[in-house]
């Protein structure tokens, strides 16, 4: 698989949307031109962030079953994408997330305690109880405000990137969208604007094969790849093994350099698999074989990076098990701290906060209604 120069134009890479960029082979070796040649430290940092993300997801899923939170969504099996991208991009860059890229926040060092407090909607909820669990916002960590509605923030990524260019900054934007959500008109409008204004943005389609109960075919996967959408706009499109930490990193670096050097937007389809149910409200056994996750051909991103480190002689099973337990304990302790503050219903932010930030300054309606509530 060739590695094209970053100043390619779409006609030179019209074949790429129909192939798949991979670097980690079956034996855990890094092969091919797309190997980003990362240091063992960086790989270890990535492995740990993926493991923390997964451990946290598992813990919170259980917390929901225990009635401690109203809702939760896991990213199991997709951790390589958000973790590698958070590490490959710069502090000044901004990602426009979906609800399935919490790995970004973990990799960027956002306090797990903040996550847990929001998930429990308790007095310390960093978003003051205004948002559901998983709908995070963390500007200082390059993480834009999530909302429940799908697809509608890709255009914000384009505008944000255009503003960066307008100011002469070299910050770039990265937008995430699930394969199912690519059907929304907002996705097309964002790509059209990105194309016309040559915005410094990376459009990432996380194709995890499922949209709640609907197979990726519902968004058109039976007719072509999601990477091929790029050809329709004359943009380079990459199709990448999303469970291959190295490939995700390399593709992201390539697209980021294009954007930063004013070569325009890139669309990347990350081919991955939604290992868990859609959310705590979902029961996947109703619509897909129970063993499908195990049968997934592209493997598990954590295992694959672990095996690679072992092949490199940097890691072994015992150390991995130890790390697993260490991560488990870390997550457990932090969640305990959050539980001490309170879980859903037992504790909540000060009520006045319900009335703040509707506008920069409250108008008479807010002031009167706050009084009506005796505040």
């Amino acid at each position: 698989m060739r590695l094209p120069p970053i100043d390619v134009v779409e006609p030179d890479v019209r074949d790429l949307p129909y192939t798949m960029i991979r670097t980690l082979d079956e034996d855990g070796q890094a092969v091919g031109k797309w190997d980003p040649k990362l240091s063992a430290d960086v790989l270890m940092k990535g492995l740990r962030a993926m493991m923390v993300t997964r451990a946290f997801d598992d813990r919170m899923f259980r917390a929901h079953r225990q009635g401690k939170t109203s809702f939760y969504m896991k990213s199991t099996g997709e951790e390589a994408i958000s973790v590698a991208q958070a590490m490959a991009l710069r502090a000044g860059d901004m990602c426009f997330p979906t609800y399935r890229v919490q790995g970004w926040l973990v990799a960027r060092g956002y306090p797990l305690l903040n996550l847990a407090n929001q998930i429990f909607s308790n007095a310390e909820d960093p978003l003051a109880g205004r948002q559901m669990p998983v709908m995070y916002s963390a500007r200082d960590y390059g993480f834009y405000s999530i909302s429940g509605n799908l697809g509608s923030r890709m255009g914000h990524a384009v505008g944000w990137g255009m503003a960066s260019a307008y100011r002469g900054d070299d910050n770039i934007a990265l937008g995430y969208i699930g394969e199912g959500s690519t059907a929304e008109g907002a996705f097309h409008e964002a790509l059209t604007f990105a194309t016309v204004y040559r915005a410094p943005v990376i459009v990432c389609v996380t194709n995890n094969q499922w949209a709640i109960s609907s197979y990726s075919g519902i968004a058109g996967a039976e007719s072509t790849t999601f990477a091929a959408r790029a050809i329709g706009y004359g943009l380079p499109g990459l199709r990448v093994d999303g469970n291959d930490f190295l490939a995700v990193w390399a593709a992201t670096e390539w697209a980021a350099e294009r954007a930063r050097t004013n070569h325009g937007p890139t669309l990347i389809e990350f081919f991955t698999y939604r290992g868990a149910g859609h959310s705590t409200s979902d029961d996947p056994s109703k619509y897909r074989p129970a063993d499908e996750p195990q049968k997934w051909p592209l493997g598990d991103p954590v295992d694959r990076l672990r095996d690679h480190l072992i092949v490199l002689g940097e890691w072994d099973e015992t150390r991995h098990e130890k790390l697993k337990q260490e991560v488990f304990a870390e997550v457990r302790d932090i969640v305990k701290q959050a539980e001490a503050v309170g879980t859903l219903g037992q504790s909540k932010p000060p009520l006045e906060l319900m009335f703040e930030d509707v506008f920069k300054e409250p108008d008479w309606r807010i002031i009167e209604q706050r009084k009506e509530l005796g505040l």
Partner: protein
Amino acid sequence: MPSMNMIQALNSALDVMLGRDPDVVIFGEDVGYFGGVFRVTDKLQEKHGLTRCFDTPIAEGGIVATAIGMGAYGLRPVIEIQFADYILPGFDQLVSEAARLRYRSRGQFWAPITVRSPYGGGIFGGQTHSQSPEAIFAHVTGLKTVIPSNPYDAKGLLISAIECDDPVLFFEPKRIYNGPFDGRHERQVQPWAGHPNAEVPEGYFSVPLGKAALMREGAEVTVLAYGTMVHVALAAIEETGIDADLLDLRSIVPLDIEAITASVKKTGRCVILHEASRYGGFGGELSALVQERCFFHLKSPIERVTGWDTPYPHAFEWDYFPGPARMAKALRRVMEN
């Protein structure tokens, strides 16, 4: 007569109409094989086949547009928008196309579509799984808007909506899918079983659009409500012991203006209750209509009890939700004159 909860009643209405009319087709996100995230279309694909009940791409504008085109051909599409909060990407299709097609083509084309969508709060759904957008649709000439408050009405009104040759928004109060919630969230959840309006005929029947239901007869004040709020109103009326006429509007377009004016002229007082935020909400229109038609009968100001003028705040759900306590206050206030 079988007892049904609201989901079963809606499912039964769809099942009956699929059986009666080959032009009825049902589609939306996850409604086919899966049967809908709230199970309202459960088993319909299995029973009636892939072409009668199927999944769609995630594009609400595309769902509505497809339904309009099918309607123009002669079908009667019934579409589901998974949450009313997500109807907005389809807003242009509903307003600029569905609502206007008959008028602008002088009756050559029309859109006999039904848009089902779970709406309202009370399930800890946060900002984008709790909103009540009925007011913005009520303002659109050419659209009808229906909101049932119990299983019997849900089935009968949905059948009328499907048979209607105009585009109908059918908002389902998701909080009362499984039981008649009256806003007293600290109490144990009630099932529909045993509730008089949970007795629902198996087969075909309809409840006309535009006729309010008198849920309780009284002399001192008229209460106007719909959806979940009908149950909240009842709780507040019991709590206060105030002798109220309670009108369940059932549809806000068409509106049963006769029933409303007759009641207010009788009682001389009116309290309006809805979940949506107050400013510019449908309560304003109701208040204006009552004031215009009953001015000289009014003993005290018409009151509105509503959600606050903030986005729907996840953790503060019960502070935002206009429950029986707020309603009772208003009832007592209007009785002071």
